[in-house]
């Protein structure tokens, strides 16, 4: 979570709100912020750290580990209509890569801004080639785009 805090400006530029959730109490969240996270991120945690003691929220998102009694690493990108556009769930020992989350948010924002008229091929980054779905593109993606080229 310190990585999210450290890159919070980027998320703010994209108009993204963050909510973090674990089974820890608000009190533990405060002490974790004060004692450790604020030192790693060089600032206080700038977003809501939610407490989900019995896993009620985690269960509905499919990320609550009943045996261990903790949440898995679950990351959800939710659009302004409240629709989940992307999710990633990992077991605890490996951390996330925030730059990939940011890339996905940028791609979903691009698609939304064009009302779906433009879509983002594999590995898309802002400024890179987009595709315009339609009858003319069927069977012709190879003329427009290749995974072997840097578009």
């Amino acid at each position, binding site marked *: *979570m310190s990585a*999210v805090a450290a890159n919070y400006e980027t*998320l703010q530029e994209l*108009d*993204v*709100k*963050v*909510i*973090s*959730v*674990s089974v*820890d*109490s*608000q*009190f*533990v*969240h*405060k*002490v*974790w*912020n004060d004692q450790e996270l604020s030192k790693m991120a060089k600032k*206080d*945690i*700038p*977003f*809501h*750290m*939610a*407490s*989900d*003691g*019995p896993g*009620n*929220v*985690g269960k*509905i*998102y*499919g*990320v609550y580990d009943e045996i*261990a009694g*903790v*949440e*898995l*690493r*679950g*990351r*959800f*990108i*939710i*659009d*302004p209509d*409240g*629709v*989940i*556009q992307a999710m990633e769930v990992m077991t*605890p020992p*490996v*951390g996330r890569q925030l730059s990939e*989350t940011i890339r996905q*948010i940028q791609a979903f924002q691009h698609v939304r801004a064009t009302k779906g008229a433009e879509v983002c091929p594999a590995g898309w980054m802002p400024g890179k080639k987009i595709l315009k779905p339609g009858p003319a593109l069927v069977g012709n993606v190879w003329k427009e785009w290749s995974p072997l080229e840097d578009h």
Partner: protein
Amino acid sequence: MAEKNAGCARPTGAVVGESAPESSEETTPKKEVKMQIAQVGTKAPDFEAPAYYQGEFTTVKLSDFLGKWVLLCFYPGDFTFV
């Protein structure tokens, strides 16, 4: 999201639309009571949970952020290593 008095009882989060476990806080019963499970392309299940936010104990409700992009991150626990 006003600051909440932090008592000794451990506050819990709840899915909006389901009755809260034992909390005395107001939970507005919504029409939709059926169990939703999060899936891409579907509405994110709304929830309300106690939260720590910039020095205050408060609550956070997902639907308060409608109109914004939201990054919702679950993680195993405070003070874990990665």
